[in-house]
């Protein structure tokens, strides 16, 4: 299980990387390598050129910019998990990261690598979707912003042109006091989830001002449950309400395999969505929150 030969490129700047990407045939970007390296070793990926982003300057780090957090594409998952800024402002991402592989793989794995690999069950893709992330993409013709919702083209296929690369993601900050929770089910600790759910609730005056509910692992990309979100908005977060909103997962289109048929994924989704919503509601703090939820 040894990789097929390739030419190795080690750019130091984004410009250099973009130039290589634009000029080399059958080239692939190497980020943290936690998904690409197994594919190379197993010879299911055969790039002629590998462009290693690990020494490119300026692609890593978490910064607060305006009302958003900006996370460089090459920021290690472990650094995001431990970032005080992320912990303070994006607790959903901190929580979800503890489910991404293992602490050891998070030492290498990057957020950009995870988003571009676009595994249907990837936690970070679901979280970015739940938080309406904006992707900063650079290509030969300059930079553009891409909504996370437009990233998945198909199964493990991001909507980036072959000569484009992701350089950072920006996540608008949910208001202080919002409640968020991430739930997933995998047969074994640290594995990709069969299904996951990410919930964000913003309360105002004891009612849900804004809700975000996202499922991972049910289709090629994450699924935002817009109708359930709309049904939650303006309501007091009672247990019955949250249960009903989660029950909407029972009618989604879900993918199927012998170990996890579609009906099972739907039931899992409903369970996990209910748990995520309930936890999010209990974590949301507003002055109007009276008594809260059990």
């Amino acid at each position, binding site marked *: *299980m*040894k*990789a*097929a*030969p390739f030419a190795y490129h080690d750019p130091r700047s984004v410009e250099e990387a973009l130039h290589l990407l634009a000029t080399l045939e059958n080239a692939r970007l190497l980020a943290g390598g936690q998904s690409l390296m*197994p594919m190379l070793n*197993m*010879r299911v990926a055969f790039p002629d050129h590998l462009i290693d982003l690990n020494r490119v300057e300026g692609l890593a780090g978490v910064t607060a910019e305006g009302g958003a957090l900006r996370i460089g594409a090459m920021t290690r998952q472990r650094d995001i998990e431990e970032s005080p800024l992320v912990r303070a402002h994006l607790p959903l991402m901190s929580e979800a990261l503890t489910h991404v592989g293992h602490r050891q793989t998070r030492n290498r794995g990057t957020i950009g690598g995870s988003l571009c690999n676009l595994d249907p069950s990837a936690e970070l893709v679901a979280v970015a979707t739940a938080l309406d992330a904006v992707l900063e993409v650079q290509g030969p013709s300059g930079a553009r912003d891409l909504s996370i919702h437009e990233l998945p083209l198909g199964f493990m296929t991001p909507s980036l042109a072959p000569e484009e690369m992701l350089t950072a993601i920006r996540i608008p900050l949910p208001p202080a006091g919002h409640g968020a929770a991430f739930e997933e*089910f995998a*047969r*074994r*600790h*640290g*594995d*990709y989830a*069969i299904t996951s759910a990410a919930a964000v609730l913003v309360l105002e005056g004891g009612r849900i001002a804004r809700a975000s509910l996202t499922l991972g692992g049910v289709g090629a990309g994450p699924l935002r449950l817009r109708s359930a979100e709309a049904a939650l908005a303006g309501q007091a977060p009672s247990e019955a309400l949250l249960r009903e909103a989660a029950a909407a997962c029972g009618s989604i289109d879900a993918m199927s395999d*012998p*170990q*996890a*048929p579609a009906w*099972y994924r739907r*039931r*899992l989704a409903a*369970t*996990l969505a*209910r*748990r995520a919503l309930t936890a999010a509601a209990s974590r949301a703090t507003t002055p109007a929150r009276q008594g809260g939820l059990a």
Partner: protein
Amino acid sequence: MDGLSPRPGEDARTLAAGPGRVVGRAVTRIEDLPLVRGEGLFAADVNFPRQLHMRVVRAEIAHGRIVSVDAEAARAMPGVVAVWTAADVADIPLIPFRATKVRGLEPYCQPVLARDRVRYVGEPVAVVLADDAYRAEDAAETVMVELEELPVVLDAAAPPGEFAPGHDTEPTVVRKEYGDIDAAFRSAHAVVELELSVGRHSGVPLETRGAIARYDAAHDVLELHGTAKKQHWNRDEIARLLGRPPQGVHLFEGHVGGGFGVRGELYPEDLLVCAAALRLRRPIKWIEDRREHLVATNHSRQQSHRIRAAVDAEGRLLGIDDVFFHDQGAYVRTHGARVADLAAGMLPGPYRLPAYRVAGHFRLTNKTPAATYRAPGRYETTFVRERLMDAIAARLEIDPVEIRRRNLVATAEMPHARPLDALGTDVVLDSGDYEGLLDKALARFGWDAMHKELAARRAAGECVGAGLAFFVEKSGLGPSDGVRVTVDATGAVEVVSGAASVGQGVETALAQICAEALGVDYSSIRVVRGRTDRIEFGNGAHASRVTVMSGSATWQASLAVREMALECAAQLLQLSPAELTISEGVVTRADGLAGPSLTLAEIARGRGPNSPAMRGQTPGLTAERWFWSDHMAYPYGVHLAQIRIDAGTGGVTVERYLVANDIGRAINPMLVEGQIVGGLAQGLGGALLEEFRYDPSGQPLSTTLADYLIPTIAEMPEVDVLIAEDAPSPLNPLGVKGAGEGGTNGAGACIASAVDDALRRPGAITSLPLLPAHLRALLVEAP
């Protein structure tokens, strides 16, 4: 006194009960130091100058006729020395199997490279030999294998298909029967019938296989490194298949990264590296990669049973009638029909059973060949038998513990002979206090109090339950094992054994036994195993035989050396041997009075070949002893589990687990506990996670460790181990029974029982492994 011939009455000396100076104590292992320092010698760590690397081209479809194999491009690749297909190795016969009573399996054995058909994905079709492992893999990619697809057989219970013209896919049916089974069913108060199945899983050791062959022309010896388990049998067969005398072939065992039954069998790759080393006159190294391992190394376990029990009104067994289908995969390998035979022979377990009939259909399918995996035939049949006992309990509304009590063979009935055989020996349960151990286990687990607690948790909405499974293991397969113990001129002690180590602590256990008998420090004893150049015969490490067989031989050889040393010392010190003892390698007066002493080193020097006193005698402070056994020793035990099901996901969490295991005598309780907990992890894996799955065309779906799910620490429950020594084996001087397989044996059965209990649906679980989706479906259907 020559160290070779036992004296009359010598084998009668048995190890005294209770902890000894070293035996029975939880001492640290002598194996560990190089392993924690990164100085081990595993297969991939073996290198020779000028070596070539072998890469195997494997079949990519499950069944097909080979139209052509085009290796021209590969032969032209840089670094490639040779590419072989079946035509290049046509002179190597099919890989044989070890003798069993089952006949007629020869046509179903595997060639080293596929001849006219491929029969499973992963079957070796060609090999590339190149100067570098990466380049060998590059070249292997270019070998074009043209195949014409043939229909696949994937279900062993479906009607047999064609293996080859004139041979169908059912090479044999293993039948055993005693008592009047028809009368049992005629007179039954109730008949309980179940259909049950166990999934395909296997040992999957963390080190993949490896084989490094080297032809030493200077000495005309073919060496094979990276071997395990059965060196002497493998040496003999390699020699025979390659047309050499066994003396011109030597197998070497380094460190072994887990065996569990699958490693150390004779596989195609072993013969290919040997043949290549002989022909190309260069060392040949082959290291299996993980994806290869999951399709090439023996699978195990897959069986489906249709079992019926006849019981009386009190739930006592009158008879069991079982028909099962054993999914052997594509070829008969070195075990022959052994797993099916063991399943048939061991199914009755701990219960009194007046009549029994079993028919085991040994079927070939287009999947990776199967053979033994830790507790072979017992993990499967304990699941089947204990499911049956739970079903009988439910049918007659008798408590599951009580139903077992009523049927357990009583201590007064030991030894308990069954008119059955397993592994070619008659099944005679040698000793045991089954009910006594059950009581101890229930008390230790707090069974009754736990049920109250579980009831309260259920009332609060939790889905929790508990279950149990009783098992009988077998161990100490004979017929023989020899050990030579030698004290050299510096006083260093060496134990040379025909056994092997698969990483389970063999060296420490044998060193403890030797130290106990001889009166030396165990930690400085050198234990040699797995090397055909150091001892002429051996039966290896499998079937939990080493501590019983090699341990007994070590005991006897060490006692013989002790006696020899005492007699020499007695002459020199002018005392009788009975007045002397040995401690820390020094012979002193046994009564503790001051007096002259002699070290074992001095005695060994005195017995040197040039010592005048040794004229006419075989020199050396050394003895070789052989231990023989016609019967196996039967350890037994009980598994108890408390589990929780997440009703929302169908996920099972094992909260608490107890394995109680009577192994007659624990040479090292720490190692025994390690065996049991480690064995349990594998048993739980087979119950909850691990499965080799295939798609409808026979493509394997579990080809990475991300798909074949081995438990991590996060999946392991808190495990309590109760090691019992209530029933020492009367069959060997140490009283020991094997400890390697009891932790695995009952796990599938126990988890199934506990899950039934949590679901409040007796009999709900009929197959392993348990899939969360399936449990979720059962929960939906729940009343």
